[in-house]
């Protein structure tokens, strides 16, 4: 069995985000990039499938600052092959990211055949689409998202996937492989790997590089961001005064106005 995990780096929101002088994009100079949280879960799910089924695990990422760290960490956790796509213009939108993944996967590099392609369900910068359904459509594969559990039957041709619904309800689906799944959460939280192991992986493993295909005008509509600004926190609560009945009434009005009823 072969599992492919797709990883995307996103801006790390722990450090303050700055807006560039154009007022329409993030200032890249001050940005730190981090592996998208649900992609980390997709990787963990891939590792669990490798442990359970003896699957081969390939990890493919798009070049970005700090991506090498993420790939060597994946290698230290147990990925058999780590690759990245380089040479494309940054920054790129999610649709462009999905197109890059799909082209590199289809172009050879010995990635296919893959039984399962896993990636995070949604990233914080997925303004113009989601990677999983886009890659699925490009590769003409079935897609299902919000997945929190996967098992593969003995034949390796069908998977059972658990999808999350509202109010704690889950749905169990039968999926004919190969397929693309958008992972919401792995069955276990992403594992810890000691720094020493990552450093060892840096010495023993190589990140394979695939050249990005030239970005032909795919005729897609551009995402036109007119303005970007920081959402500043207020710093202090708006205090409500009055008797318990008065403040309760006022608060209910506020909650109703925000659609919180």
């Amino acid at each position: 069995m072969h599992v492919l995990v797709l990883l995307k780096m996103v801006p790390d929101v722990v450090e303050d985000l700055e807006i560039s002088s154009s007022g329409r994009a993030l200032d890249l100079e001050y940005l730190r990039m981090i592996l998208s949280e649900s992609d980390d879960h997709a990787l963990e799910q891939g590792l669990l499938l490798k442990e359970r089924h003896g699957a081969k695990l390939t990890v493919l990422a798009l070049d970005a600052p700090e991506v090498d760290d993420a790939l060597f960490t994946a290698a230290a956790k147990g990925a058999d092959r780590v690759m990245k796509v380089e040479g494309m213009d940054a920054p790129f939108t999610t649709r462009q990211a999905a197109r890059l993944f799909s082209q590199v996967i289809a172009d050879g590099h010995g990635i296919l055949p893959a039984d399962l392609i896993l990636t995070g369900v949604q990233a914080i910068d997925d303004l113009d689409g989601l990677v999983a359904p886009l890659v699925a459509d490009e590769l003409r594969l079935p897609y299902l998202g919000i997945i929190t559990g996967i098992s593969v039957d003995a034949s390796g041709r069908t998977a059972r996937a658990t999808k999350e619904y509202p109010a704690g309800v889950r749905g169990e689906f039968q999926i004919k492989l190969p397929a693309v799944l958008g992972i919401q959460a792995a069955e276990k939280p992403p594992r810890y790997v000691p720094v020493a192991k990552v450093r060892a992986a840096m010495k023993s493993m190589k990140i394979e590089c695939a050249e990005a295909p030239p970005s032909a005008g795919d005729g897609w509509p551009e995402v036109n961001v007119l303005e970007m600004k920081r959402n500043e926190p207020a710093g202090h609560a708006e205090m409500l005064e009055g008797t318990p009945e008065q403040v309760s009434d006022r608060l209910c009005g506020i909650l109703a106005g925000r659609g919180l009823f």
Partner: protein
Amino acid sequence: MTGNICVLAEQWRGQISEVTYETLALGREVADQLGVPLTAILTGSHCREIAGAMGIADSVVYVDHPLLAEVIPQTCAEALVQVMKDSPPRALLVPLTNISLGIGTLIGIRMGVPVVNFCNDIKVAGGDLKAHCVMYGGKIEATVEAGTASGPLPAVLGIWPGARPADKGRSTRAVPVTDATVVLGEAQAITLSKFIEPEAGDVDLTKQDVLVAVGRGIQDKANLGLAEDLAKALGGAVCGSRPVIDQGWLPLSRQVGKSGLTVKPKLYIALGISGAPEHIEGMKDSGMIVAVNTDERAPIFNVAHYGIVGDVLETLPALTEAVGARKAVGHHA
């Protein structure tokens, strides 16, 4: 539906979902400002009767097919493309929820139209639509062009839950329902086997929309019932800061904070919680934070959106009563 504002309706457990009403409310505003009709599109199997619940729309298009009984994103997208392609709407609003996630993206790629996610508002200016998007975990607000009137159409907009109050999207007005037929492939790679209900037993705090959190200000285990009442009235669950769990008033699974769970509900009500960094760490990203504390300098007021200086034991019952009263008035049949 050429030039209309369309909303993809979702159903959950035989009812139109709350988020659909929220999205319809937004769609109604945009349609009115543009001077075009609002159309809801509902897909399903043998559920035509719930289409009539969307009276806020000017029309409903109902697409019936056995394969649309449960939402499989690719199947649903295929149906919608067939319905829209000959008379594309100006914009299609798709809720960003567990049920509908992915459908908007697929329509985008299959019809070669713009997709803009993370919208919590849409402004109309001179016939153009501008999406107001909240990105990067809520830290950045962006204004994005949602396609132009000259196309390609429709512009697909992914709408955040909570963009408008659901009540604003409800109406008992009679709405015409038309049927649309689609042709969907026989061979299905994805099929739903069964639903798994959540275990009766303990509650997963991270999945709650509303959390009522108690700290030492609740004073006694016996007073927890008051918090439970409020949680029930708001459709949420009770959780606590560490001292409350340490005293055994609530189980470990209800602890929020550095040593417990990190939660991001839509509404977090902190009752008698001082706001130690260890607790704040676990709830600071909640959508709206309301704090009640006797100490006006309690650090919790630095992260809360709204604050009440007062005794929890007095404020709590008043709040529960006010919530109950408002719900009794506002809810439609």
